[in-house]
């Protein structure tokens, strides 16, 4: 994984609460055996008409959303199924951070393993972001701040180990594999 220090870019806003992983990527796209190209299926049932043409009013399809790197979403984003295809699809589409007032547990864990930064912020800052789609934000993982173009912003917190892994491009499996002796000892003690 590429180390991540700062994510800077425009936002795209999906204000609804409880956006579940079946919306992020519907189940019919889970029949793949690799991770490639899932961005095309991102929010497929919201993003496209029945015949596959893009719905112009869907936030991701608006011209100002082109190249957006930060998804601002309603409370409890990513609830539902454990499909890692959800962060794979977001990352493949170019999203690098998801900002909300809360993010579902399994989605958050999956996001972190794919260099997709889950950012939980206060309700006030969240409201401002919801109200200004296309805003440019700067998310600094070293300083743990999300800053808007006017210089105002908010702190956010993230698990220390997850932050270390993201900032150093380390994957968790490497760490777990380094625990071989402890695992052997645990198995031997049972």
């Amino acid at each position, binding site marked *: 994984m590429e180390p991540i220090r700062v994510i800077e870019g425009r936002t795209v806003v999906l204000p609804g609460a*409880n956006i579940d992983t079946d919306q992020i990527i519907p189940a019919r796209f889970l029949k793949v055996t690799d991770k490639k190209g899932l961005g095309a299926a991102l929010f497929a049932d919201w993003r496209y008409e029945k015949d596959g043409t893009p719905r112009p009013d869907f936030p991701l399809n608006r011209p100002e959303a082109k190249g957006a790197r930060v998804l601002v979403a309603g409370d409890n984003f990513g609830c539902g199924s*454990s499909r890692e295809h959800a962060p794979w699809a977001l990352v493949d589409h170019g999203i690098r951070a998801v900002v909300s007032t809360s993010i579902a547990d399994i989605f958050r864990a999956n996001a972190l393993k794919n260099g997709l930064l889950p950012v939980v912020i206060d309700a006030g800052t969240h409201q401002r972001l919801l109200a200004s789609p296309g805003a440019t934000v700067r998310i600094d993982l070293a300083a743990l701040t999300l800053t808007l173009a006017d210089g105002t912003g908010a702190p956010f917190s993230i698990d220390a180990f997850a932050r270390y892994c993201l900032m150093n491009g380390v994957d968790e499996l490497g760490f777990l594999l380094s625990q071989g002796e402890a695992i052997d000892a645990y198995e031997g003690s049972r």
Partner: protein
Amino acid sequence: MPSAESSERSPRRHALSPRTLFEKVWDAHLVRPETAETPAVLYVDLHLVHEVTSPQAFSALRERGLRVRRLDRTVATMDHSTPTSAPVDGHYRFGDAQAEAQVAKLRQNCAEFGVELHPLGDPAQGIVHVIGPELGLTQPGMTVVCGDSHTATHGALGALAFGIGTSEVGHVLATQCLLQRRPRTLAVRVEGKLATGVAAKDLILAVIARIGVGGGTGHVIEYLGPAVRALSMEERMTVCNMSIEAGARAGMVAPDDVTFQYLSGRPRAPKGRDWERALAAWRSLPGDEGARHDREVRIDGSALEPMITFGTNPGQAIPVTGRVPDPARSGDPAARAALEAALRYMGLEPGRPILGQKVDVVFIGSCTNGRIEDLRAAAAVMKGRRVKVRSLVVPGSRAVKSQAEAEGLDRVFREAGAEWREPGCSMCIGMNGDQIGRGQYCVATSNRNFEGRQGAGGRTLLASPATAAASAVAGAVADARRVGA
């Protein structure tokens, strides 16, 4: 790399202080406790694998030249992408070539890495969360994981069981461990006694409606109280299964004689002296007197009624005798907007009774309600009656199917005009050929009523097997307590 040894958090409680069920299971599986810098290294006793969330994990192992660390703790089956139509001349007809290729990939991965697999046609094949308990693989006090959020089901036996993503599937395959922060605990205490005609599904839908779809985030739920104690093992599975629909990765019920009787004699349960030893250990698992949860919610089980969802998340549920809520009565603008959006998608009118709402399809099955007791409950309603709409009855496993056939339930369903199908996830997830159409209403015994969950544009109403069967007979949402009355 931060050191795992440094600045270990002081244990929250003294080793001899009272502990909850969750704390006992958690503590017993710590290869390394968590520190401020690093999560706990948590050992996994049982890893269940299926075709949808495993191929990329096996690829990751292959790329790094890794093997599966504990083949004796890893069991695979096929359930999500598998067809539920009967094989023709021994050949299963898949929904499409991609589904077939995914299932073939699992077969190939299991052969290459040596993983025990229960493929299509195998007597032990079925939905991963149905076969784990059924085979006796899931046992009290274990840690159980699977790349599937409904792994919470296994908590019914007093295991700590939760869903993981594909990266973590790879971690467990390679190391038998996961990096985890200790979750908080939420006690859901259900007082009283469920009334006749109120099922476990009704109980969990009421719990989710009460605490909300994000109410359990960051928590493991322990279900307690007399109404929970009185549930059968399968009913407890239904309850724990939907913990994730309240945002909790896991739900647990302390093991008791109901659990032990269920497990006794199962193929993979301990035998003889091992059984006696296991039993002694399992009896020490329930929470100690005075053990405290981080939060507690109390529910009066006696006051519950059969429940059904009207919206697009499992928390949007009402008594089957109730009316569709009116967004205009919601004080909070965000809640009002969410409710309006849900009703628009569902095509339901505020204030109207949900009873009598037309239904196009009924689905009875899934890891929530695809076990033998569920099929018995549905058959009791359908017996001697005819269904008015397309009705699929899908056993959760081949063993459930055989048992149902031995009891003649398949005949009841067929004579009622319902489809008796092969085991699998079927119409719960709609990626196997079993789907509902755009705009169609489906009363389903599954776990998710998200937009398009059962097929793009489809509308799902979650309910118990009895409510689903009654609705099939009526061709509209019906109260099973009043069928034939």
